[in-house]
């Protein structure tokens, strides 16, 4: 007998339909899975065999051939287990109705017949819906992440036995499709996030991060060890605007594929904050690889990628950030396939001013030679610097500042200003693909960053007197635009330009001597 069961596979963050064809013929007992499966797929036969027997069904000793079509795309992971089991059971006529033909099956099987959670349920459901599939059976453990998909009949089931009973209409109690939830119902909880309230001093850095959050600018923080760069960065995600539903779905999709989703919550409500260590490999950052998973920069999509000790990362790895920083996505081309993952993140990088970290410090002496300092700084190439709008210096704070009782502004207050500035930008860029000032294209800059005579004069004197490099020009304009937005100004004023220039510390000449 031949049966055909539907399941789904993933390329990048999009799903595609996979047809599981099962043929049972008499002859020498044998089980073969064809269709370019990886080891996890090949091993499915052992799991399926035991799961069927241990669920109280019969596993006829015959010759089985299972084909996963389309046969030329590589299939990965154990999510086809359930589909294969259903295929065998219907081919051996233990599933009596044809109801299964309308369903998509996703799930890994345990030897005792339990359906276990799998990666990538949310993206599969989204793709299935857009491809016109209506009914899906998913593992019970993945129930929460499926709740945000409306317009589909999704059933979250525990065991293989339950699935068969459901398909045979033999269940004791009717099995309901899962209840959908709306995004607004989700409680947004800020899980022990650091608050700017707890950071003493560092007024300039805080202001710089506020601007960065408001305009989506990338930031480089330069300062000696122990000056609080990491702490500032960790506070940063607390002042970013809340995720919208679309953004949250995108983020959740990527995390679901990477298997990093908290299954109890089902959806991610917080902007991600990723901090890969500087020993990270290029593939772990970009994604792809053998099991084509999204990398750190995609997991930071719609959130923050924090690279501490920036020059310690390998040169090649830093350079791979160039395309994603520009396009907001990364295309990983491998021999087998080409995958595009979204990677629209804000980069926060921090570094010491020199190998020993004390260059320019007031109270500690730097022991590095000028060559060492030059080499250290030049690890960050020009093109990368070009993509970082704000460079801010952070200095050690004194004991007095540390103990001062002065109340610092809390993140919630800063966030209100950020939200307002973002709203201005969304209004400005509606009907275009830009969302923030940082991503403005050249024509958009010409249109929205018009400088008055005063501003132009200021720019000109600034360039000659401060010896700013040419690449600083556009960065300054973009940041000035954001500062104006924060203040609610239509036009960029001279003081906005002046402030924007103060965030170009590294372009100054004293860094080069």
């Amino acid at each position: 007998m031949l049966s055909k069961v539907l399941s789904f596979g993933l390329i990048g963050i999009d799903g595609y339909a996979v047809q599981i064809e099962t043929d049972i013929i008499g002859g020498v007992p044998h089980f073969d899975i064809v269709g370019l499966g990886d080891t996890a797929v090949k091993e499915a036969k052992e799991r399926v065999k035991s799961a069927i027997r241990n669920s109280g069904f019969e596993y006829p000793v015959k010759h089985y051939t299972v084909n996963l079509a389309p046969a030329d795309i590589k299939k990965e992971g154990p999510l086809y287990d359930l589909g294969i089991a259903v295929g065998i059971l219907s081919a051996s006529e233990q599933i009596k109705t044809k109801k299964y033909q309308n369903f998509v099956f996703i799930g890994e099987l345990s030897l005792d017949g339990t359906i276990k959670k799998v990666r990538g349920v949310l993206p599969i459901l989204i793709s299935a819906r857009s491809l016109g599939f209506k009914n899906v059976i998913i593992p019970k453990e993945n129930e929460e992440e499926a709740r945000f998909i409306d317009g589909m009949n999704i059933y979250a089931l525990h065991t293989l036995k339950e699935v068969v009973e459901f398909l045979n209409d033999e269940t004791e109690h009717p099995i309901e499709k899962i209840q959908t939830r709306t995004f607004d119902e989700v409680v947004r909880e800020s899980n022990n996030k650091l608050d700017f309230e707890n950071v003493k001093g560092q007024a300039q850095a805080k202001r710089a991060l506020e601007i960065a959050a408001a305009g989506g600018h990338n930031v480089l923080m330069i300062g000696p060890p122990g000056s609080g760069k990491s702490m500032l960065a960790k506070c940063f995600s607390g002042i970013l605007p809340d995720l919208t539903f679309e953004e949250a779905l995108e983020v959740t999709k990527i995390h679901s594929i990477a298997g990093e989703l908290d299954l109890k919550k089902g959806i991610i409500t917080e902007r991600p904050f990723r901090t890969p260590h500087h020993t990270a490999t290029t593939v772990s950052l970009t994604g792809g690889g053998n099991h084509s998973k999204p990398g750190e920069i995609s997991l930071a999509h719609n959130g923050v990628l924090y690279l501490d000790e920036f020059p310690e990362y390998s040169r090649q790895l830093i350079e791979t950030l160039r395309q994603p920083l520009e396009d907001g996505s990364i295309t990983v081309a491998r021999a087998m396939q080409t995958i595009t993952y979204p990677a629209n993140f804000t980069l926060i990088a921090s570094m010491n001013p020199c190998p020993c970290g004390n260059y320019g410090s007031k109270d500690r002496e730097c022991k590095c030679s000028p060559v060492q300092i030059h080499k250290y700084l030049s690890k960050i190439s020009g093109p990368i610097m070009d993509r970082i709008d704000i460079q801010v210096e952070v200095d050690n704070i004194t004991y007095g500042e540390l103990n001062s009782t002065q109340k610092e502004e809390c993140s919630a207050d800063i966030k209100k200003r950020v939200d307002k500035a973002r709203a201005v930008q969304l209004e400005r860029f509606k009907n275009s693909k830009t969302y923030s000032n940082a991503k403005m294209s050249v024509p958009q800059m010409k249109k929205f960053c018009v400088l008055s005579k005063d501003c132009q004069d200021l720019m000109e004197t600034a360039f000659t007197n401060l010896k700013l490099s040419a690449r600083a020009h556009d960065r300054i304009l973009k940041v000035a635009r954001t500062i104006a937005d924060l203040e609610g100004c239509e036009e960029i004023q001279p003081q906005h330009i002046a402030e924007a220039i103060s965030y170009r510390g590294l372009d100054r000449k004293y860094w080069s001597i």
Partner: protein
Amino acid sequence: MDLRDRFLIFMSMCEIPNKKQEKFLECLENFSMDAVFAHPMTKKILSVDEFLKVEREYDPQVLDASIQNMKNCGIEIVTVFSEKYPKSLIDLPDRPLILYAKGDMSLLDEKCFAIVGTRMPSNYGKIITEKFAKCLAESGLVIVSGLCYGVDSIAHKSTLEVGGKTIAIIGSGFNHIYPATNVSLAREIAEKGLLLSEYPPSFEAKRYTFPRRNRIVAGVSDGVLITEAGMKSGTVHTKEFALLYGKDIFAVPGNITNSKSELTNHLIKTAQAECALSPDDIVEFYDLTKKVQEKKALSLNFDEQMIVKLLENGEQNFDFLAEKTKIPVNILNSCLTTLEIRGLIRKLPAQTYALVSS
């Protein structure tokens, strides 16, 4: 260019030490190379290796070609026999017998003044070096230094910035500028001032060439100013040579707890150097007319005045200014930048700001 010049050029290209060349000058009468090889003293002066090298490398055509080549590159070769040889050097006991020059040789006849110091100056060192260099250059002194990192670079750059004349004396050949980051600065100096070396263009810097170079720095200058230097700095050599040659030495006092000011403070304490508290001290010492700067009529607003007032007591960091002035951070940022653009204050690494005193 006579035989003696050719002889010296060839010897310098073979990297024969200065002292041995002097010995040749004492005993030789005929400077044609054939005569040199035949002369009995040659084998006493040169070591076996050097002798073989000189003999192996001597080829009149190649020598002519490389001299021509240097000329084409704009390099002027001045030997001790040349009229252009600087008068300040001619009587020195360890004078360089040959000088390679790029730029305006006449600068050496003007009043030259060296500004030297540590390769890694503190913020204080940077600020005062710039201040002294600018002011002295504007008073008409030609600023001499060694094109190294730190004080040297700042002295050259500041001089060029105010349109002054500067001489860079380097411890390597012109094709091997050290440090490499200063190549563009060297090019600018060659255009607007003078680049000088006693080594042929293909000569690479060696450990011992830097102290050697310092004797020329001290030699060509009427006086030497040390702005900031520690006891182990190469500046010690410049000072020693300056003492030996009887030049005026000035030192800027520094913080006694800072190891980078040890040498300058020590020189002042032991009365080896004049204490220079401001560029005026040097200007008056040499009876120069200081270019009177027109006080720019600056209109500062209240906030800006407050910042300037606070910085009068020395450099301060951002958080200090924010706390004392109570100006909101965004306004403070833009005020500081405006002041910086106007040239009133200076931003130093690590959020520190200092007043540019005039």
